[in-house]
Protein backbone atom coordinates (compact mmCIF):
# COMPACT_ATOMS: atom_id res chain seq x y z
CA UNK A 1 0.00 0.00 0.00
CA UNK A 2 1.44 3.34 -0.99
CA UNK A 3 1.62 6.29 1.34
CA UNK A 4 -1.79 7.66 2.06
CA UNK A 5 -2.18 11.43 2.38
CA UNK A 6 -2.52 12.49 6.04
CA UNK A 7 -6.15 13.50 5.53
CA UNK A 8 -7.05 9.95 4.58
CA UNK A 9 -5.13 8.06 7.23
CA UNK A 10 -8.14 7.89 9.52
CA UNK A 11 -10.35 6.65 6.68
CA UNK A 12 -7.78 4.03 5.69
CA UNK A 13 -7.65 2.81 9.28
CA UNK A 14 -11.44 2.68 9.64
CA UNK A 15 -11.88 0.69 6.40
CA UNK A 16 -9.06 -1.81 6.21
CA UNK A 17 -10.44 -3.67 3.16
CA UNK A 18 -10.25 -0.53 1.05
CA UNK A 19 -7.07 -0.42 -1.03
CA UNK A 20 -5.45 2.96 -1.48
CA UNK A 21 -2.91 3.50 -4.22
CA UNK A 22 -1.35 6.22 -6.29
CA UNK A 23 -2.04 6.02 -10.02
CA UNK A 24 -0.26 8.52 -12.29
CA UNK A 25 -0.28 11.05 -9.48
CA UNK A 26 -3.92 10.51 -8.41
CA UNK A 27 -4.96 8.93 -5.13
CA UNK A 28 -7.28 6.05 -5.94
CA UNK A 29 -9.21 3.95 -3.44
CA UNK A 30 -10.84 0.69 -4.45
CA UNK A 31 -13.81 -0.11 -2.23
CA UNK A 32 -16.58 -2.66 -2.25
CA UNK A 33 -20.25 -1.89 -2.60
CA UNK A 34 -20.88 -2.38 1.10
CA UNK A 35 -18.10 -0.07 2.23
CA UNK A 36 -18.46 2.77 -0.19
CA UNK A 37 -21.15 4.85 1.52
CA UNK A 38 -19.42 4.61 4.89
CA UNK A 39 -16.07 5.38 3.31
CA UNK A 40 -17.44 8.45 1.56
CA UNK A 41 -19.02 9.71 4.77
CA UNK A 42 -15.72 9.39 6.58
CA UNK A 43 -13.87 11.00 3.73
CA UNK A 44 -16.34 13.86 3.52
CA UNK A 45 -15.98 14.54 7.22
CA UNK A 46 -12.21 14.49 6.77
CA UNK A 47 -12.48 17.54 4.50
CA UNK A 48 -13.38 16.16 1.07
CA UNK A 49 -16.58 18.16 0.82
CA UNK A 50 -16.60 19.11 -2.86
CA UNK A 51 -18.33 16.44 -4.90
CA UNK A 52 -17.01 16.32 -8.43
CA UNK A 53 -18.11 13.33 -10.44
CA UNK A 54 -19.69 9.90 -10.48
CA UNK A 55 -19.49 7.81 -13.62
CA UNK A 56 -19.70 4.20 -14.73
CA UNK A 57 -17.32 2.20 -16.89
CA UNK A 58 -18.15 -1.09 -18.59
CA UNK A 59 -15.17 -3.47 -18.66
CA UNK A 60 -17.00 -6.10 -20.62
CA UNK A 61 -14.79 -9.11 -20.13
CA UNK A 62 -13.72 -8.42 -16.59
CA UNK A 63 -15.32 -9.64 -13.41
CA UNK A 64 -16.77 -7.43 -11.84
CA UNK A 65 -18.07 -6.03 -15.09
CA UNK A 66 -18.79 -2.43 -14.17
CA UNK A 67 -16.81 0.14 -12.26
CA UNK A 68 -18.27 3.22 -10.65
CA UNK A 69 -15.72 6.01 -10.29
CA UNK A 70 -16.47 8.71 -7.74
CA UNK A 71 -14.29 11.81 -7.71
CA UNK A 72 -14.19 14.18 -4.76
CA UNK A 73 -11.98 17.10 -3.88
CA UNK A 74 -10.85 18.67 -0.64
CA UNK A 75 -10.69 22.41 -1.28
CA UNK A 76 -9.07 23.22 2.05
CA UNK A 77 -6.23 20.73 1.58
CA UNK A 78 -5.97 20.79 -2.24
CA UNK A 79 -6.37 17.04 -2.59
CA UNK A 80 -8.23 14.86 -5.03
CA UNK A 81 -9.54 11.38 -4.34
CA UNK A 82 -11.01 8.84 -6.70
CA UNK A 83 -13.02 5.92 -5.30
CA UNK A 84 -13.60 2.93 -7.57
CA UNK A 85 -16.36 0.43 -6.83
CA UNK A 86 -16.68 -2.83 -8.72
CA UNK A 87 -20.23 -3.82 -9.69
CA UNK A 88 -20.98 -7.30 -11.08
CA UNK A 89 -22.79 -7.51 -14.39
CA UNK A 90 -25.29 -10.06 -13.13
CA UNK A 91 -26.46 -7.82 -10.30
CA UNK A 92 -25.94 -4.22 -11.41
CA UNK A 93 -26.93 -2.25 -8.37
CA UNK A 94 -25.31 -0.25 -5.65
CA UNK A 95 -26.39 1.82 -2.62
CA UNK A 96 -26.94 5.45 -3.45
CA UNK A 97 -24.29 8.00 -2.64
CA UNK A 98 -26.75 10.91 -2.70
CA UNK A 99 -27.29 10.66 1.06
CA UNK A 100 -23.65 11.66 1.49
CA UNK A 101 -23.25 13.98 -1.49
CA UNK A 102 -26.59 15.31 -2.75
CA UNK A 103 -24.92 16.37 -5.98
CA UNK A 104 -24.58 12.76 -7.09
CA UNK A 105 -28.33 12.63 -7.74
CA UNK A 106 -28.17 13.49 -11.45
CA UNK A 107 -24.96 11.51 -11.94
CA UNK A 108 -26.53 8.34 -10.60
CA UNK A 109 -29.53 8.83 -12.84
CA UNK A 110 -27.16 9.14 -15.77
CA UNK A 111 -25.35 5.93 -14.82
CA UNK A 112 -28.72 4.20 -14.61
CA UNK A 113 -29.84 5.64 -17.91
CA UNK A 114 -26.76 4.80 -19.92
CA UNK A 115 -25.53 1.63 -18.18
CA UNK A 116 -28.48 0.17 -16.33
CA UNK A 117 -26.89 0.28 -12.89
CA UNK A 118 -29.55 0.84 -10.25
CA UNK A 119 -28.88 2.80 -7.11
CA UNK A 120 -31.01 1.59 -4.22
CA UNK A 121 -32.77 4.25 -2.13
CA UNK A 122 -32.23 6.87 -4.79
CA UNK A 123 -35.11 9.39 -4.55
CA UNK A 124 -35.78 9.50 -8.30
CA UNK A 125 -34.41 6.51 -10.21
CA UNK A 126 -35.55 7.48 -13.68
CA UNK A 127 -33.86 8.13 -16.97
CA UNK A 128 -32.37 11.53 -17.42
CA UNK A 129 -30.75 11.90 -20.83
CA UNK A 130 -32.78 9.56 -23.00
CA UNK A 131 -36.54 9.65 -23.58
CA UNK A 132 -38.55 7.99 -20.86
CA UNK A 133 -39.67 5.07 -23.00
CA UNK A 134 -36.25 4.21 -24.43
CA UNK A 135 -35.33 0.55 -24.25
CA UNK A 136 -31.82 -0.51 -23.50
CA UNK A 137 -28.72 1.11 -22.08
CA UNK A 138 -26.66 2.48 -24.95
CA UNK A 139 -23.26 3.00 -23.34
CA UNK A 140 -22.83 -0.66 -22.46
CA UNK A 141 -20.12 -2.28 -24.50
CA UNK A 142 -22.38 -4.95 -25.98
CA UNK A 143 -24.62 -2.31 -27.53
CA UNK A 144 -23.51 -0.97 -30.88
CA UNK A 145 -23.03 2.70 -31.54
CA UNK A 146 -26.21 2.70 -33.62
CA UNK A 147 -24.85 4.13 -36.83
CA UNK A 148 -27.01 3.98 -39.93
CA UNK A 149 -26.01 3.96 -43.56
CA UNK A 150 -25.83 7.47 -44.98
CA UNK A 151 -28.87 8.20 -47.07
CA UNK A 152 -28.42 10.23 -50.21
CA UNK A 153 -32.01 11.14 -50.49
CA UNK A 154 -32.16 13.15 -53.66
CA UNK A 155 -29.43 11.31 -55.53
CA UNK A 156 -31.55 8.98 -57.63
CA UNK A 157 -34.41 11.34 -58.29
CA UNK A 158 -34.49 13.04 -61.65
CA UNK A 159 -34.24 16.80 -61.30
Amino acid at each position, binding site marked *: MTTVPPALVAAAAAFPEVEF*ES*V*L*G*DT*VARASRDDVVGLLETVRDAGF*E*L*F*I*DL*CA*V*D*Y*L*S*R*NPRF*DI*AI*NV*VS*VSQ*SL*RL*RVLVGIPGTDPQMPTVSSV*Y*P*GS*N*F*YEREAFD*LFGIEFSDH*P*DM*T*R*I*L*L*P*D*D*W*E*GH*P*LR*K*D*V*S*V*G*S*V*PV*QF*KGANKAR
Partner: protein
Amino acid sequence: MSNPPDLVPGEPDVPSEDRSSPESESRRSVHDLWLSGTEAPRELGPFTDEGAQEMLAGESPELLASQTGTLVDDDYEAPSRSADDELQIINMGPQHPATHGVLRLHLELDGETIRRVKPIIGYLHTGMEKTAEALTFMQGSTNVTRMDYLSPLHNELGYSLAVEKLLEVEVPPRAAAIRVLMSELNRIASHLLWCATSGFDIGALSMMIYGLRERESLLEFFEKTTGLRMNHNYIRPGGVAADLPPDWREDMVSIIAIVEAGLADYVTLLLGNPIFIERTRGVGILTHDECLAYGVTGPVARASGVDYDVRKVFPYSGFEQYDFEVPITTNGDVYDRFLIRFEEIRQSIRIVKQVMETIPEGDYRTEDRKVTPPPRARIDESMEALIHHFKIFTEGFKVPAGETYQAVESSRGELGMYLVSDGGSKPWRLHVRGPSFANVQSLPMMLADSLIADTVAALASADPVMGDVDR
Protein backbone atom coordinates in the same frame (compact mmCIF):
# COMPACT_ATOMS: atom_id res chain seq x y z
CA MET B 1 0.46 1.76 -13.21
CA SER B 2 -2.59 0.02 -11.92
CA ASN B 3 -4.58 -2.13 -14.29
CA PRO B 4 -8.16 -2.77 -13.47
CA PRO B 5 -8.17 -6.42 -12.31
CA ASP B 6 -8.46 -9.10 -14.99
CA LEU B 7 -8.52 -6.70 -17.89
CA VAL B 8 -6.47 -8.08 -20.74
CA PRO B 9 -4.76 -5.10 -22.32
CA GLY B 10 -5.17 -4.73 -26.06
CA GLU B 11 -8.01 -7.21 -26.36
CA PRO B 12 -11.38 -5.86 -25.41
CA ASP B 13 -13.67 -8.84 -25.46
CA VAL B 14 -16.28 -7.47 -27.82
CA PRO B 15 -18.85 -10.03 -28.92
CA SER B 16 -19.16 -10.99 -32.56
CA GLU B 17 -21.54 -8.12 -33.30
CA ASP B 18 -19.46 -5.78 -35.39
CA ARG B 19 -19.67 -2.33 -33.92
CA SER B 20 -18.65 -0.64 -37.13
CA SER B 21 -21.03 -2.41 -39.46
CA PRO B 22 -23.90 -0.20 -40.48
CA GLU B 23 -26.22 -3.17 -40.68
CA SER B 24 -25.77 -4.03 -37.02
CA GLU B 25 -28.94 -3.74 -35.08
CA SER B 26 -29.47 -0.28 -33.75
CA ARG B 27 -31.43 0.18 -30.59
CA ARG B 28 -33.54 3.11 -31.68
CA SER B 29 -36.96 1.86 -30.79
CA VAL B 30 -38.80 5.11 -30.28
CA HIS B 31 -38.52 6.88 -33.63
CA ASP B 32 -38.13 4.63 -36.61
CA LEU B 33 -36.09 5.63 -39.60
CA TRP B 34 -38.14 6.93 -42.47
CA LEU B 35 -37.28 8.68 -45.68
CA SER B 36 -38.94 11.93 -46.54
CA GLY B 37 -41.71 11.57 -49.05
CA THR B 38 -42.86 8.27 -47.60
CA GLU B 39 -45.59 7.75 -45.08
CA ALA B 40 -45.09 9.64 -41.88
CA PRO B 41 -44.09 7.61 -38.83
CA ARG B 42 -46.47 6.98 -36.04
CA GLU B 43 -46.66 9.13 -32.95
CA LEU B 44 -44.26 11.82 -33.95
CA GLY B 45 -46.89 14.48 -33.41
CA PRO B 46 -47.74 15.88 -30.02
CA PHE B 47 -45.67 13.40 -28.10
CA THR B 48 -43.52 15.52 -25.82
CA ASP B 49 -44.57 13.88 -22.57
CA GLU B 50 -41.55 12.66 -20.69
CA GLY B 51 -43.41 10.50 -18.23
CA ALA B 52 -41.58 9.82 -15.03
CA GLN B 53 -38.90 12.41 -15.77
CA GLU B 54 -41.37 15.25 -15.34
CA MET B 55 -42.44 16.88 -12.11
CA LEU B 56 -45.18 14.71 -10.66
CA ALA B 57 -47.86 15.85 -8.28
CA GLY B 58 -47.08 13.53 -5.41
CA GLU B 59 -43.40 13.03 -4.70
CA SER B 60 -41.44 11.40 -1.93
CA PRO B 61 -40.04 13.61 0.85
CA GLU B 62 -36.44 13.26 -0.34
CA LEU B 63 -37.38 14.24 -3.86
CA LEU B 64 -39.46 17.17 -2.58
CA ALA B 65 -36.47 18.32 -0.58
CA SER B 66 -34.25 18.27 -3.66
CA GLN B 67 -36.87 20.08 -5.73
CA THR B 68 -37.37 22.81 -3.16
CA GLY B 69 -33.65 23.14 -2.65
CA THR B 70 -33.69 22.37 1.05
CA LEU B 71 -31.43 19.32 1.16
CA VAL B 72 -28.39 21.17 2.36
CA ASP B 73 -29.53 24.43 3.92
CA ASP B 74 -33.08 24.38 5.19
CA ASP B 75 -34.01 27.97 4.46
CA TYR B 76 -37.33 27.18 2.80
CA GLU B 77 -40.27 29.25 3.96
CA ALA B 78 -43.46 27.29 3.62
CA PRO B 79 -46.13 29.50 2.09
CA SER B 80 -49.19 30.30 4.15
CA ARG B 81 -51.52 29.11 1.40
CA SER B 82 -50.72 25.54 0.63
CA ALA B 83 -53.92 24.13 -0.80
CA ASP B 84 -52.85 21.82 -3.58
CA ASP B 85 -55.46 22.94 -6.06
CA GLU B 86 -54.02 26.45 -5.99
CA LEU B 87 -50.64 25.27 -7.14
CA GLN B 88 -49.83 25.24 -10.81
CA ILE B 89 -47.09 23.38 -12.62
CA ILE B 90 -45.71 25.40 -15.50
CA ASN B 91 -43.52 24.05 -18.25
CA MET B 92 -40.69 26.28 -19.45
CA GLY B 93 -38.91 25.07 -22.54
CA PRO B 94 -37.26 23.19 -24.14
CA GLN B 95 -37.80 25.69 -26.91
CA HIS B 96 -37.67 29.00 -25.12
CA PRO B 97 -35.75 32.16 -25.84
CA ALA B 98 -34.22 32.40 -22.40
CA THR B 99 -33.27 28.89 -21.41
CA HIS B 100 -29.81 29.10 -22.95
CA GLY B 101 -30.32 26.08 -25.06
CA VAL B 102 -32.70 23.21 -24.73
CA LEU B 103 -33.34 23.05 -21.01
CA ARG B 104 -36.80 22.21 -19.82
CA LEU B 105 -37.89 23.42 -16.40
CA HIS B 106 -40.97 22.37 -14.52
CA LEU B 107 -41.89 25.03 -12.01
CA GLU B 108 -44.59 24.63 -9.43
CA LEU B 109 -46.01 28.04 -8.75
CA ASP B 110 -48.04 29.41 -5.91
CA GLY B 111 -49.19 32.61 -7.54
CA GLU B 112 -45.94 34.26 -8.57
CA THR B 113 -43.77 32.39 -6.09
CA ILE B 114 -41.87 29.33 -7.12
CA ARG B 115 -42.21 26.40 -4.76
CA ARG B 116 -40.56 23.54 -6.57
CA VAL B 117 -38.25 23.29 -9.57
CA LYS B 118 -37.38 20.24 -11.61
CA PRO B 119 -34.98 20.54 -14.50
CA ILE B 120 -35.54 18.01 -17.28
CA ILE B 121 -32.52 17.60 -19.49
CA GLY B 122 -31.45 15.34 -22.29
CA TYR B 123 -32.82 17.30 -25.23
CA LEU B 124 -29.35 17.70 -26.65
CA HIS B 125 -28.04 14.24 -25.80
CA THR B 126 -25.71 13.42 -28.67
CA GLY B 127 -24.12 10.21 -27.47
CA MET B 128 -20.71 11.83 -27.62
CA GLU B 129 -19.26 9.51 -25.03
CA LYS B 130 -20.22 6.56 -27.21
CA THR B 131 -18.89 8.25 -30.33
CA ALA B 132 -15.61 8.86 -28.51
CA GLU B 133 -15.14 5.10 -28.26
CA ALA B 134 -15.35 4.86 -32.05
CA LEU B 135 -12.82 7.60 -32.82
CA THR B 136 -9.06 7.36 -32.45
CA PHE B 137 -7.26 9.42 -29.86
CA MET B 138 -6.15 11.95 -32.43
CA GLN B 139 -9.71 12.37 -33.70
CA GLY B 140 -11.01 12.67 -30.15
CA SER B 141 -10.50 16.43 -30.09
CA THR B 142 -13.08 16.92 -32.84
CA ASN B 143 -15.68 15.14 -30.76
CA VAL B 144 -14.90 16.60 -27.38
CA THR B 145 -14.70 20.14 -28.66
CA ARG B 146 -18.41 20.14 -29.44
CA MET B 147 -19.53 19.38 -25.92
CA ASP B 148 -19.16 22.75 -24.25
CA TYR B 149 -19.41 24.61 -27.52
CA LEU B 150 -18.73 28.00 -25.98
CA SER B 151 -15.32 27.01 -24.67
CA PRO B 152 -14.20 24.44 -27.23
CA LEU B 153 -10.51 24.91 -26.52
CA HIS B 154 -10.99 24.04 -22.85
CA ASN B 155 -12.57 20.74 -23.79
CA GLU B 156 -9.72 19.98 -26.16
CA LEU B 157 -7.16 20.94 -23.57
CA GLY B 158 -8.63 18.65 -20.93
CA TYR B 159 -8.82 15.77 -23.36
CA SER B 160 -5.28 16.25 -24.66
CA LEU B 161 -3.89 16.51 -21.14
CA ALA B 162 -5.66 13.29 -20.15
CA VAL B 163 -4.27 11.44 -23.17
CA GLU B 164 -0.80 12.82 -22.54
CA LYS B 165 -1.01 11.74 -18.92
CA LEU B 166 -1.66 8.16 -20.00
CA LEU B 167 1.01 8.36 -22.70
CA GLU B 168 3.44 9.93 -20.22
CA VAL B 169 4.50 12.41 -22.87
CA GLU B 170 5.60 15.99 -22.17
CA VAL B 171 4.70 18.80 -24.49
CA PRO B 172 7.36 21.41 -25.26
CA PRO B 173 7.11 24.67 -23.27
CA ARG B 174 6.06 26.69 -26.30
CA ALA B 175 3.13 24.37 -26.86
CA ALA B 176 2.12 24.72 -23.23
CA ALA B 177 2.31 28.50 -23.49
CA ILE B 178 0.24 28.51 -26.69
CA ARG B 179 -2.34 26.35 -24.95
CA VAL B 180 -2.51 28.80 -22.07
CA LEU B 181 -2.90 31.72 -24.46
CA MET B 182 -5.67 30.06 -26.45
CA SER B 183 -7.58 28.90 -23.42
CA GLU B 184 -7.51 32.32 -21.82
CA LEU B 185 -8.68 33.91 -25.06
CA ASN B 186 -11.45 31.34 -25.12
CA ARG B 187 -12.39 32.26 -21.57
CA ILE B 188 -12.68 35.91 -22.62
CA ALA B 189 -14.79 34.99 -25.66
CA SER B 190 -17.07 32.78 -23.58
CA HIS B 191 -17.59 35.40 -20.89
CA LEU B 192 -18.32 38.03 -23.54
CA LEU B 193 -20.97 35.81 -25.07
CA TRP B 194 -22.39 35.06 -21.65
CA CYS B 195 -22.51 38.77 -20.94
CA ALA B 196 -24.30 39.37 -24.23
CA THR B 197 -26.95 36.70 -23.70
CA SER B 198 -27.45 37.37 -19.99
CA GLY B 199 -27.82 41.07 -20.52
CA PHE B 200 -30.26 40.33 -23.32
CA ASP B 201 -32.28 37.99 -21.10
CA ILE B 202 -32.42 40.47 -18.25
CA GLY B 203 -33.67 43.13 -20.61
CA ALA B 204 -30.65 45.11 -21.77
CA LEU B 205 -31.29 44.19 -25.37
CA SER B 206 -28.32 46.08 -26.78
CA MET B 207 -25.93 43.96 -24.71
CA MET B 208 -26.37 41.22 -27.25
CA ILE B 209 -24.97 43.40 -30.00
CA TYR B 210 -22.13 44.82 -27.90
CA GLY B 211 -20.98 41.49 -26.49
CA LEU B 212 -21.02 39.71 -29.82
CA ARG B 213 -19.27 42.64 -31.49
CA GLU B 214 -16.31 42.43 -29.11
CA ARG B 215 -16.28 38.67 -29.47
CA GLU B 216 -15.92 38.93 -33.25
CA SER B 217 -12.37 40.24 -32.91
CA LEU B 218 -11.46 37.14 -30.91
CA LEU B 219 -13.17 34.85 -33.39
CA GLU B 220 -11.20 36.45 -36.22
CA PHE B 221 -7.99 35.61 -34.42
CA PHE B 222 -9.16 32.06 -33.81
CA GLU B 223 -9.98 31.66 -37.46
CA LYS B 224 -6.54 32.93 -38.41
CA THR B 225 -4.76 30.54 -36.06
CA THR B 226 -6.88 27.43 -35.97
CA GLY B 227 -8.86 27.63 -39.18
CA LEU B 228 -12.31 27.80 -37.61
CA ARG B 229 -14.31 30.33 -35.65
CA MET B 230 -15.68 27.70 -33.29
CA ASN B 231 -15.05 24.01 -32.56
CA HIS B 232 -11.44 24.40 -33.51
CA ASN B 233 -9.82 20.95 -33.15
CA TYR B 234 -6.59 22.82 -32.47
CA ILE B 235 -5.26 21.45 -29.17
CA ARG B 236 -4.40 17.83 -29.79
CA PRO B 237 -2.53 15.19 -27.81
CA GLY B 238 1.13 16.04 -28.24
CA GLY B 239 0.82 19.79 -28.63
CA VAL B 240 -1.16 22.05 -30.87
CA ALA B 241 -2.04 21.64 -34.52
CA ALA B 242 -0.14 24.65 -35.87
CA ASP B 243 2.05 27.44 -34.64
CA LEU B 244 0.73 30.94 -33.97
CA PRO B 245 0.63 33.26 -37.00
CA PRO B 246 3.71 35.51 -37.30
CA ASP B 247 1.94 38.77 -36.39
CA TRP B 248 0.02 37.43 -33.42
CA ARG B 249 1.41 39.99 -31.02
CA GLU B 250 -0.15 42.85 -32.97
CA ASP B 251 -3.43 40.96 -33.00
CA MET B 252 -3.23 40.53 -29.23
CA VAL B 253 -2.65 44.24 -28.72
CA SER B 254 -5.68 45.17 -30.80
CA ILE B 255 -7.87 42.48 -29.18
CA ILE B 256 -6.94 43.64 -25.71
CA ALA B 257 -7.72 47.24 -26.61
CA ILE B 258 -11.12 46.30 -28.05
CA VAL B 259 -12.11 44.07 -25.15
CA GLU B 260 -11.03 46.54 -22.49
CA ALA B 261 -12.97 49.33 -24.15
CA GLY B 262 -16.01 47.07 -24.39
CA LEU B 263 -15.68 46.03 -20.76
CA ALA B 264 -15.64 49.64 -19.65
CA ASP B 265 -18.87 50.13 -21.63
CA TYR B 266 -20.58 47.15 -20.04
CA VAL B 267 -19.67 48.21 -16.56
CA THR B 268 -21.23 51.61 -17.21
CA LEU B 269 -24.25 50.11 -18.91
CA LEU B 270 -24.99 47.40 -16.38
CA LEU B 271 -23.39 47.52 -13.01
CA GLY B 272 -24.48 50.98 -12.00
CA ASN B 273 -27.93 50.74 -13.53
CA PRO B 274 -30.59 50.78 -10.77
CA ILE B 275 -32.91 48.48 -12.71
CA PHE B 276 -30.13 45.98 -13.21
CA ILE B 277 -29.24 46.13 -9.53
CA GLU B 278 -32.87 45.53 -8.55
CA ARG B 279 -33.05 42.52 -10.80
CA THR B 280 -29.81 40.96 -9.73
CA ARG B 281 -29.04 41.80 -6.11
CA GLY B 282 -30.29 39.13 -3.74
CA VAL B 283 -31.54 36.96 -6.57
CA GLY B 284 -30.58 33.36 -7.14
CA ILE B 285 -28.60 32.98 -3.95
CA LEU B 286 -26.53 29.85 -3.44
CA THR B 287 -24.69 29.29 -0.17
CA HIS B 288 -21.16 28.01 0.30
CA ASP B 289 -22.23 24.61 1.65
CA GLU B 290 -24.77 24.09 -1.09
CA CYS B 291 -22.08 24.67 -3.69
CA LEU B 292 -19.77 22.10 -2.16
CA ALA B 293 -22.44 19.47 -1.67
CA TYR B 294 -23.74 19.76 -5.22
CA GLY B 295 -20.37 20.04 -6.90
CA VAL B 296 -21.00 23.53 -8.24
CA THR B 297 -17.71 25.01 -9.40
CA GLY B 298 -16.55 27.96 -11.43
CA PRO B 299 -17.78 31.56 -11.18
CA VAL B 300 -21.03 30.43 -9.57
CA ALA B 301 -19.16 28.79 -6.68
CA ARG B 302 -16.65 31.60 -6.40
CA ALA B 303 -19.53 34.04 -6.02
CA SER B 304 -20.55 32.08 -2.92
CA GLY B 305 -17.12 32.16 -1.41
CA VAL B 306 -15.72 28.78 -2.47
CA ASP B 307 -12.05 29.41 -3.13
CA TYR B 308 -11.58 26.79 -5.82
CA ASP B 309 -10.01 27.39 -9.22
CA VAL B 310 -8.38 24.37 -10.83
CA ARG B 311 -5.69 26.60 -12.34
CA LYS B 312 -4.52 27.51 -8.85
CA VAL B 313 -5.26 24.36 -6.87
CA PHE B 314 -4.19 21.69 -9.40
CA PRO B 315 -2.20 23.66 -12.00
CA TYR B 316 -1.78 22.30 -15.50
CA SER B 317 -0.05 23.32 -18.72
CA GLY B 318 2.28 25.73 -16.95
CA PHE B 319 -0.35 27.93 -15.29
CA GLU B 320 1.77 28.14 -12.16
CA GLN B 321 4.25 30.45 -13.91
CA TYR B 322 1.70 33.16 -14.56
CA ASP B 323 0.70 35.76 -12.07
CA PHE B 324 -3.05 36.22 -11.83
CA GLU B 325 -5.76 36.48 -9.22
CA VAL B 326 -8.96 34.57 -8.81
CA PRO B 327 -11.88 36.84 -7.85
CA ILE B 328 -14.03 35.63 -4.96
CA THR B 329 -17.07 37.23 -3.40
CA THR B 330 -19.43 36.02 -0.72
CA ASN B 331 -22.97 37.11 -1.49
CA GLY B 332 -23.72 34.34 -3.93
CA ASP B 333 -26.26 36.29 -5.95
CA VAL B 334 -26.53 37.14 -9.62
CA TYR B 335 -24.87 40.54 -9.21
CA ASP B 336 -21.78 38.93 -7.74
CA ARG B 337 -21.56 36.51 -10.62
CA PHE B 338 -21.53 39.44 -13.03
CA LEU B 339 -18.76 41.09 -11.01
CA ILE B 340 -16.73 37.91 -10.95
CA ARG B 341 -16.99 37.23 -14.65
CA PHE B 342 -16.04 40.80 -15.52
CA GLU B 343 -13.01 40.51 -13.25
CA GLU B 344 -12.12 37.16 -14.78
CA ILE B 345 -12.00 38.81 -18.18
CA ARG B 346 -9.53 41.34 -16.80
CA GLN B 347 -7.41 38.61 -15.22
CA SER B 348 -7.39 36.63 -18.45
CA ILE B 349 -6.15 39.73 -20.27
CA ARG B 350 -3.41 39.93 -17.66
CA ILE B 351 -2.38 36.33 -18.39
CA VAL B 352 -2.43 36.98 -22.14
CA LYS B 353 -0.06 39.93 -21.66
CA GLN B 354 2.31 37.75 -19.66
CA VAL B 355 2.26 35.05 -22.31
CA MET B 356 3.09 37.67 -24.92
CA GLU B 357 6.21 38.56 -22.99
CA THR B 358 7.42 35.19 -21.79
CA ILE B 359 6.51 32.70 -24.50
CA PRO B 360 9.60 30.67 -25.43
CA GLU B 361 10.64 29.75 -28.92
CA GLY B 362 10.63 26.11 -29.89
CA ASP B 363 8.39 23.38 -31.13
CA TYR B 364 4.66 23.67 -31.01
CA ARG B 365 4.28 19.92 -30.63
CA THR B 366 6.24 17.08 -29.21
CA GLU B 367 8.94 15.42 -31.25
CA ASP B 368 7.77 11.93 -30.36
CA ARG B 369 6.92 10.53 -33.76
CA LYS B 370 4.68 7.87 -32.33
CA VAL B 371 2.27 10.57 -31.20
CA THR B 372 2.60 13.52 -33.52
CA PRO B 373 2.61 13.16 -37.28
CA PRO B 374 5.82 14.29 -38.99
CA PRO B 375 5.89 17.57 -40.93
CA ARG B 376 4.48 17.14 -44.42
CA ALA B 377 7.76 17.99 -46.16
CA ARG B 378 9.53 15.10 -44.47
CA ILE B 379 7.10 12.59 -45.91
CA ASP B 380 8.68 12.97 -49.33
CA GLU B 381 12.17 12.40 -47.97
CA SER B 382 11.92 9.69 -45.40
CA MET B 383 10.23 6.30 -45.53
CA GLU B 384 9.94 6.23 -41.79
CA ALA B 385 8.14 9.57 -41.75
CA LEU B 386 5.68 8.24 -44.32
CA ILE B 387 5.00 5.14 -42.26
CA HIS B 388 4.47 7.15 -39.09
CA HIS B 389 2.09 9.50 -40.88
CA PHE B 390 0.15 6.59 -42.32
CA LYS B 391 -0.11 4.73 -39.04
CA ILE B 392 -1.15 7.76 -37.06
CA PHE B 393 -3.88 8.81 -39.43
CA THR B 394 -5.33 5.41 -40.22
CA GLU B 395 -4.96 3.24 -37.17
CA GLY B 396 -4.04 5.89 -34.63
CA PHE B 397 -1.39 5.78 -31.99
CA LYS B 398 -1.80 3.35 -29.15
CA VAL B 399 -2.13 4.60 -25.61
CA PRO B 400 -1.01 2.34 -22.73
CA ALA B 401 -3.78 0.80 -20.66
CA GLY B 402 -4.91 2.66 -17.58
CA GLU B 403 -7.36 5.20 -16.31
CA THR B 404 -6.94 8.80 -15.37
CA TYR B 405 -8.89 11.90 -14.49
CA GLN B 406 -7.74 15.29 -15.68
CA ALA B 407 -9.49 18.53 -14.89
CA VAL B 408 -9.17 22.01 -16.37
CA GLU B 409 -10.83 25.24 -15.34
CA SER B 410 -13.28 26.01 -18.11
CA SER B 411 -15.28 29.22 -18.18
CA ARG B 412 -18.07 27.44 -16.34
CA GLY B 413 -16.17 25.50 -13.72
CA GLU B 414 -14.23 22.29 -13.40
CA LEU B 415 -14.28 20.41 -16.67
CA GLY B 416 -12.98 16.93 -16.07
CA MET B 417 -12.11 14.11 -18.42
CA TYR B 418 -12.12 10.57 -17.09
CA LEU B 419 -10.30 8.52 -19.68
CA VAL B 420 -9.91 4.75 -19.64
CA SER B 421 -7.68 3.11 -22.19
CA ASP B 422 -7.26 -0.61 -22.87
CA GLY B 423 -3.98 -0.25 -24.75
CA GLY B 424 -5.60 0.18 -28.14
CA SER B 425 -5.86 3.13 -30.47
CA LYS B 426 -9.32 4.21 -29.37
CA PRO B 427 -10.49 5.13 -25.87
CA TRP B 428 -12.25 2.37 -23.98
CA ARG B 429 -14.32 4.91 -22.09
CA LEU B 430 -14.33 8.67 -22.07
CA HIS B 431 -16.49 10.36 -19.51
CA VAL B 432 -16.62 14.13 -19.48
CA ARG B 433 -17.52 15.82 -16.23
CA GLY B 434 -19.24 18.91 -17.52
CA PRO B 435 -19.49 21.79 -15.08
CA SER B 436 -22.94 22.75 -16.28
CA PHE B 437 -24.36 19.32 -15.34
CA ALA B 438 -23.73 20.07 -11.68
CA ASN B 439 -24.69 23.71 -12.01
CA VAL B 440 -28.10 22.80 -13.45
CA GLN B 441 -28.72 20.58 -10.41
CA SER B 442 -28.37 23.66 -8.25
CA LEU B 443 -31.26 25.50 -9.92
CA PRO B 444 -33.89 24.42 -7.35
CA MET B 445 -31.77 25.93 -4.62
CA MET B 446 -31.42 29.19 -6.49
CA LEU B 447 -35.04 29.49 -7.48
CA ALA B 448 -37.27 28.08 -4.75
CA ASP B 449 -39.09 30.81 -2.85
CA SER B 450 -38.28 33.47 -5.39
CA LEU B 451 -40.52 35.05 -7.96
CA ILE B 452 -40.97 33.60 -11.40
CA ALA B 453 -39.46 36.71 -12.95
CA ASP B 454 -36.19 35.86 -11.24
CA THR B 455 -35.95 32.54 -13.04
CA VAL B 456 -34.42 34.06 -16.11
CA ALA B 457 -31.86 36.11 -14.23
CA ALA B 458 -30.78 33.20 -12.05
CA LEU B 459 -30.62 30.78 -14.96
CA ALA B 460 -28.58 33.22 -17.01
CA SER B 461 -26.12 33.68 -14.18
CA ALA B 462 -25.59 29.95 -13.81
CA ASP B 463 -24.40 29.95 -17.44
CA PRO B 464 -25.44 26.43 -18.39
CA VAL B 465 -24.37 25.20 -21.79
CA MET B 466 -26.58 22.29 -22.73
CA GLY B 467 -23.88 20.61 -24.78
CA ASP B 468 -22.00 20.12 -21.54
CA VAL B 469 -25.06 18.98 -19.63
CA ASP B 470 -26.34 16.43 -22.10
CA ARG B 471 -23.26 15.51 -24.10
